[in-house]
C-alpha cells in the first residue's frame, strides 16, 4: 500500500512534467492544426538553457529559470517565423515532417554544443524528506508547485486577457476569429511563446528530477503526446488531466512490469483512448 502511494506521488511529479509539455503540444495543435514533433527537443533545449544560466554563468536558480524559459520562447517564435510560417498553407503532413526535421536539428545542436554525456544542475545526492514511510525529494515540491503556478497562470491568461480569449476563439473557429478582427499571426506568436515557456519549464523540471541529456526530451515525447491526445488534443485543460493519467499510470505500472517499459504504458493508454474515446477523456470537442 505504501509503495502504491509512493508511486502515485512519483506519478504526480512525472505527470506535472508531462502536463507542461502536453499543454504546449495541445495549444499548438489547436491553433495551427499540426502535431509538433519537435516539442520534446524544445524541452531539452530549455533545460540546457537553464544549465547555461545556472551552472555556466552562475545565476541564481530563480533567475536562470525565467531567463531559460524566455530564451526557449524566443527560439520557438524564431523557428515558427523562419520555417513553419512558410508552410502554413501547405498540407499538415508537410508541417509534421518539417517539425520532425526540426526535432533532429535541435537535438543535434544540443549534442554539438553541450556534448553527448549526462550533465546535472547540482552534483551530490539530495536526501529525500521522509514522511512516515514515504520519501519525497525537496525538488519534487518545486516541480509540482512550479507546474501548478504555471497552469494557474495559463488559466488566468486564457480566461482573463484579451489575447488569451482570442487564442481560445481562434482554436475554436479561425474564420470567425478573423471576421471578428483577430490578427491570427499575432495569436500564433503568442501561442509559441506560451508553448516555449511551458516546454522549457517541463525540460528544466525533468532535468531536476533526472539529469540533462540530449535525448531527454525526445524520450518523453511519446508520453507528452499521449497525454495531449488522452486529454483531447487542442484542449489545453484536457492536457492537465491527460498528463496526470499518463504520469501516474507510468509510475504505478512499475509495480507490475519492468520500468524500462514505462513508455509502452503510455502507448497502450494512447491506443485504448484512440479506439474507445478518440476525442479524449475530458469530453468531446463540439
Amino acid at each position, binding site marked *: 500500500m505504501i509503495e502504491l502511494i509512493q508511486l502515485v506521488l512519483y506519478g504526480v511529479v512525472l505527470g506535472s512534467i508531462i502536463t507542461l509539455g502536453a499543454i504546449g503540444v495541445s495549444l499548438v495543435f489547436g491553433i495551427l492544426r499540426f502535431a509538433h514533433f519537435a516539442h520534446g527537443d524544445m524541452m531539452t533545449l530549455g533545460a540546457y538553457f537553464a544549465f547555461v544560466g545556472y551552472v555556466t554563468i552562475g545565476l541564481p536558480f530563480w533567475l536562470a529559470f525565467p531567463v531559460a524559459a524566455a530564451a526557449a520562447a524566443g527560439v520557438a517564435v524564431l523557428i515558427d517565423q523562419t520555417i513553419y510560417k512558410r508552410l502554413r498553407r501547405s498540407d499538415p503532413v508537410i508541417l509534421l515532417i518539417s517539425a520532425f526535421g526540426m526535432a533532429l536539428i535541435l537535438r543535434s545542436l544540443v549534442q554539438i554544443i553541450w556534448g553527448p554525456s549526462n550533465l546535472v544542475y547540482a552534483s551530490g545526492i539530495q536526501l529525500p524528506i521522509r514522511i512516515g514511510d514515504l520519501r519525497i525529494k525537496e525538488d519534487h515540491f518545486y516541480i509540482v508547485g512550479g507546474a501548478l503556478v504555471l497552469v494557474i497562470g495559463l488559466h488566468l491568461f486564457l480566461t482573463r486577457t484579451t489575447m488569451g480569449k482570442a487564442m481560445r*476563439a481562434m482554436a*475554436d*473557429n479561425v*474564420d470567425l476569429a*478573423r*471576421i*471578428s*478582427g*483577430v490578427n491570427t499571426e499575432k495569436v500564433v506568436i503568442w501561442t509559441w511563446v506560451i508553448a516555449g515557456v511551458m516546454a522549457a519549464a517541463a525540460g528544466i523540471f525533468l532535468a531536476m528530477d533526472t539529469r540533462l541529456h540530449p535525448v531527454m526530451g525526445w524520450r518523453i515525447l511519446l508520453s507528452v503526446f499521449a497525454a495531449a491526445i488522452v486529454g483531447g488534443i487542442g484542449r489545453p485543460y484536457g492536457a492537465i488531466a491527460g498528463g496526470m493519467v499518463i504520469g501516474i499510470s507510468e509510475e504505478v505500472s512499475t509495480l507490475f512490469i519492468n520500468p524500462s517499459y514505462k513508455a509502452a504504458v503510455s502507448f497502450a493508454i494512447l491506443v485504448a483512448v484512440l479506439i474507445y474515446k478518440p476525442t479524449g477523456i475530458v469530453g468531446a470537442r463540439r
Partner: protein
Amino acid sequence: MSLLAIEDLYGGYGGADILSGVRLTVDPGEIVVIIGPNGAGKSTAMKSVFGLITVRQGRITFDGKDITRLPTQQIVRHGICYVPQTNNVFTSLTVHENLEMGAYVRRDNYAGQFDKVYDLFPPLRERRNRPAGHLSGGQRQMVAMGRALMMEPRLLLVDEPTAGLAPLFIDQIFQIVKDVNRLGIAVLMVEQNAKKALAIAHRGYVLTLGRNRHEDTGPNLLADREVAEMFLGG
C-alpha cells in the same frame, strides 16, 4: 453614395468562378435582401465582402474605399460586421465571451454596449456564462447577431439568420433586424423566407447561378409574378 458597392464581381474558391458578374449596392440605413435558389452564390457574395473568397475581377467598395483584397481581419475595422450562415458562434466560449470577441478591435469604452445587446436579446442575459455551444439554435443565432452588434457597425451582413428556426423565432429575428435597422445600421441579409424578408426590405436582389437576375424594391419584388413563382410558393 452607396455605403457598400459590389461592382461586377467574378470569383470563387480557387476553381471555376462561383460569382460571374454580381452587382449589388446597399445605401446607408437600408435593409437589402438577397434571395435565390440553393447554390446560387448568395453566401459566396457575402463572403466576398470579408475577403473569404478569391476575387478574380471586379471591385468592392465600402464608404468609397476599395476593400476588395483586404485581409479578412481588417474588414471589421471599417465598420462592417458579418454573421455567417453556419459556424457563426464560438461554441467553446461563453455567451459573454462571444460578445467580447465581437468588440475585439474596439479600443473605446464599450461597456454599455453589452447592456444594449442583452436588452435586444433578453434570453442571453441569464445565460451569459454558459458556453454558446450549449444553447438552442435560436439562442445561438442571437449570440451570433449579438457578437456582430457589439461593434455598433454601420453595415451588418447576415446570412440566413432564420434557417432551421421555429416560426415564432423567425418572426422574432425579423423584428430584431428591423429594430437594429431603426438604430441606423444598414442591413444586407440573405434569406430563404423570401416573403417575410422582402416585407421588411427596402430593396431586394434575386441571384441565380452567380448572377443578378432581378433587382427591385421589396414591395415590387413581392408583387413580381416570376419571383412569386420561384420563391414565394406560387
